[in-house]
């Protein structure tokens, strides 16, 4: 019991000292996030809604199998630049139907898929200072997408793999969990387009992506 009390006293003495170290009161320096170019890594889960001709001609079903991770350099002005690598997957099953081409008729259950690994560079413009708990931003991005287009007729597949240019425009916001903290949430709505023409796809793949993410920042 005695030992416990001593331990408690020791801890009581140590804890405030530790807390003091965390928040130096001597100088009121701005946060390091304001003073330096800092790093920020974000992992996102995305829901993607097909739009345009991609939706009309190929897949109209929303996809929830989209992930990405990004790394950015938060500059001392209002901008940040970075790279994002992701994975997106669309799939739609159609009931058995007849497909005719020339003299040939095919009866099959079609499974339409598109998977992409987009690798993009992006620029963000932030509207509020870094000390703000809510940091809305706009984003433009461009890069390449490693793309796999496969239409299955039953168990037979028609596949096309390509690397195609991809681009995006988005708006979003970062939400810090704690003032000057390292962790936060990220919400983003983004238009994503990839130029690709093959078979059913006449003018590319476009979707409206809404993502929620978690970020960690450090300097």
């Amino acid at each position: 019991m005695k030992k416990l009390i001593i331990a408690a006293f020791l801890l009581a003495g140590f804890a405030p000292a530790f807390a003091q170290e965390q928040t130096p009161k001597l100088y009121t320096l701005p946060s390091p996030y304001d003073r330096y170019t800092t790093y920020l890594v974000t992992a996102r889960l995305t829901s993607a809604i097909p739009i345009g001709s991609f939706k009309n001609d190929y897949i109209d079903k929303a996809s929830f199998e989209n992930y990405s991770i990004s790394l950015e350099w938060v500059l001392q002005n209002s901008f940040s630049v970075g790279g994002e690598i992701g994975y997106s997957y669309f799939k739609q099953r159609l009931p058995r139907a007849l497909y005719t081409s020339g003299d040939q008729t095919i009866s099959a259950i079609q499974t339409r898929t598109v998977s992409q690994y987009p690798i993009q560079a992006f620029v963000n413009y932030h509207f509020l200072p870094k000390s703000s708990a809510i940091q809305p931003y706009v984003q433009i991005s461009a890069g390449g997408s490693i793309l796999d287009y496969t239409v299955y007729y039953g168990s037979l597949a028609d596949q096309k793999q390509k690397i195609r240019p991809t681009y995006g425009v988005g708006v979003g916001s970062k939400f810090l969990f704690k003032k000057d903290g390292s962790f936060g949430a990220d919400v983003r709505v983004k238009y994503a387009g990839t130029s690709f023409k093959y078979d059913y796809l006449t003018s590319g793949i476009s979707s409206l992506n809404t993502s929620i993410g978690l970020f960690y920042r450090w300097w």
Partner: protein
Amino acid sequence: MLKKASFLIIFAAIWLTSCTKDPINDLTDPDSQVFITNHDKSIDFKQFKTFSIADSVVVVEDDRSGTALTDMDKQILSTVITKMQSLGYTYVAASKKPDVGLTVARITNNYLNVVSTPYSSYYGGYYGGYGYGYPSYYSYYQTSESYWSVSMLDLKNANTATKTLNVIWDAQIRGDGLGNTDYFSEMIDSIFGQSTYLKIN
């Protein structure tokens, strides 16, 4: 710090590429089946009245071929006969000069595939930062696909000069569960059903 960050990206890339998908593994056997038909559009099938069918199934595997008449083969032949009769054709023996002749074949194609597995330089590093001097390895795997093929030959208008019989209609049944006799009636219904021009009654 930057180094750590780029490692994260590489790690993420490897993790992301590792999840390959099989989007059709949830298809049942009948759902996986594909029925492909072709026909000669210049032919009016109403000119035909009688048909015959080869009394065994042609078995083709790669470059080899032969004939067989297993229970499964008998069943698919009789299913085809019943279906042709329901479309208005009269079944006659091959010696009775039928207007059209049908053949059923089981075709198996084997493919040899090659993949190369280059060793990644990321394996290096453990032994003092040297990369591994592996050559690219090739591995081989064989895939095989079997399918049914049903063809209709024009015996009435045979080209006597070149001694050829024109294939005026043919069908392929591909997919899974093709050896399951429970599916035969549905399979044969499908290939004839999507070829409405064959109906003469």
